[in-house]
């Protein structure tokens, strides 16, 4: 078999032989959905000139106009009565776990990114791209200030005519809780577990920045490159995105708001040894 499915009563997801997501199926809608990791290489600039600063802690300034991709392989597909998972790892220190819990209306992507290898002298910025066949006409929505969701249009600003010298970074916006795109039929929302940056650089795609390791300071004040290590290796980040699919006409704001709060305020979990406490006594 060269395809695998994760499914519950609300949702079905198709994965190809390398473990990559290809389709999402709701009971009445099927659409293409891929979740792939890429990396941008950081620009090395001339910090004495404001328009030529390096990519650093304050600014995202990629060197290329297309990100670099990775090779993937499926490394596991546990299935049971509580959760179905698909494990995928790449050749560039990225691992992801797609999870669908029994009864859940949302789909969860848990990722482990890093340590980022900079032995080639290149600083790198890792992103995830959700690629769909939705026709969003360059329109996407972000809740940049955490209070209201604003409409964003690729290569446009509502107040003035825009010519972007940096087409990638110039279309990145802050994401506090969510970013979404939609067409006439479907809305695809990505809920983040922390504030991140992202945009919709290509038709039907959502891109979110996950992890960065850069070798040059950007001259905005920190005075250090964004190059943190632990135990001699670059940092590893582990995070989670929750993907929520809905009909474009459907008002699911309350469900989404609750899901966001559940993501940010999960139950506090404590564990205690019970070696002197038998089940019957408990």
């Amino acid at each position, binding site marked *: 078999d060269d395809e695998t499915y994760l*499914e*519950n*009563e*609300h*949702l*079905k997801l*198709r994965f190809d032989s390398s473990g990559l997501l290809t*389709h999402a*199926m*709701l*009971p*009445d*809608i*099927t659409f*293409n959905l891929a979740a792939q990791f890429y990396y941008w290489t950081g620009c090395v600039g001339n910090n004495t000139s404001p328009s030529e600063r390096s990519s650093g*802690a*304050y600014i995202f300034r990629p060197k290329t106009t297309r990100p670099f991709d990775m090779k993937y392989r499926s*490394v*596991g597909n*546990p299935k*049971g*009565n*509580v*959760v179905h998972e698909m*494990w995928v*790892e790449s050749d560039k220190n990225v*691992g992801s776990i797609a999870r669908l*819990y*029994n*009864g859940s209306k949302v789909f969860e992507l848990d990722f*482990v990114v890093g*340590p980022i290898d900079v032995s080639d002298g290149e600083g790198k910025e890792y992103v995830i791209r959700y690629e769909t066949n939705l026709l969003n006409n360059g329109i996407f929505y972000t809740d940049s200030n955490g209070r209201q969701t604003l409409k964003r249009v690729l290569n446009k600003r509502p107040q003035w005519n825009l010519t972007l010298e940096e087409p990638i970074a110039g279309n990145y916006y802050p994401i506090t809780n969510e970013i979404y795109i939609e067409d006439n039929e479907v809305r695809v929302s990505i809920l983040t577990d922390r504030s991140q940056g992202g945009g919709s650089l290509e038709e039907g795609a959502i891109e979110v920045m996950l992890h960065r390791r850069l070798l040059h300071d950007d001259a905005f004040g*920190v005075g*250090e490159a*964004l190059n*943190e290590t*632990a*135990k*001699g*290796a670059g940092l*590893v980040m*582990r995070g989670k995105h929750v993907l929520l699919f809905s*009909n474009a006409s*459907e008002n699911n704001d309350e469900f989404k708001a*609750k899901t966001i709060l*559940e993501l940010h*305020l*999960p*139950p*506090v*979990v*404590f*564990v*205690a*040894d*019970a*070696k002197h*406490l*038998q*089940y019957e006594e408990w």
Partner: protein
Amino acid sequence: MFVLNELKSAMGMMQHHDAVTGTEKQHVAHDYERILHEALEDSSIIAKQAFNKIVQRDGDKPPLFQYERCSFNESSCDLTERSDQFVVTLYNPLGWKVKYPVRVPVMEGTYTVYAPNGEAIDSQLVGIPDFVKNIPTRESNATHEVVFLAHLHPMGVKSFYVKREKKEKRESKMNDYYLHFNDYFKIGDNAKMVEFENNPMLKPVFKSNYEDNDLKTKEPGIGVNSEKSMNSMKPIDIDVLKDKDGDNLDIEELRRLVDERDRATGPKFPELSD
């Protein structure tokens, strides 16, 4: 209040724009980390004391539980991975019911999870992928996670008892039938069913609202399929199943018919589009 104020103070410091965005110098980042970690460690004593009060332990006796927090973000927990039986206590800080998937790092084995009412609940032992096990800073022997779904009340506390069984290993414990994408209704006492137009055999009597519990049944579901939206599919309480001619339909007959159809055609899903 002393330890709580320490945490409040640390959280205040973390509102600084450099702490929020990560534009602080590295030695400042380490200092922030130290301040926040110490404040969290110290203030967790409040939760530990509160939980032991809930289990009504006399003040002069040692606490029943020495609660610990684990590093779930790297799937490690020193306590659960070496213990054969432990208690997992959860506090839901939100003002509504939540269904939270709990993932507890453990060694490989067979585990049973007991809900607060003493009943064993569904749990699953899931391996930890190598890309998590190999995180350079991870110091853990845990190879698996016990996963179960905790239903928590608004701002409620619940404890679950997890016990490692001394039996042959098994990947999962199945207590309930798991409903699949194409199983939308159950047959049994107070049967509930989801209407689907393309099955002329079923005729609803009256409607009711969906409940999560309806989707989980101990009765084997019958494979049916609908290409209608889940939202437009209303669950229906049925007193009697009727066929297209209005005659009462025997449940076993319905089960046989649908099974026969599924065997002939296989489960039906929406067509994939390229």
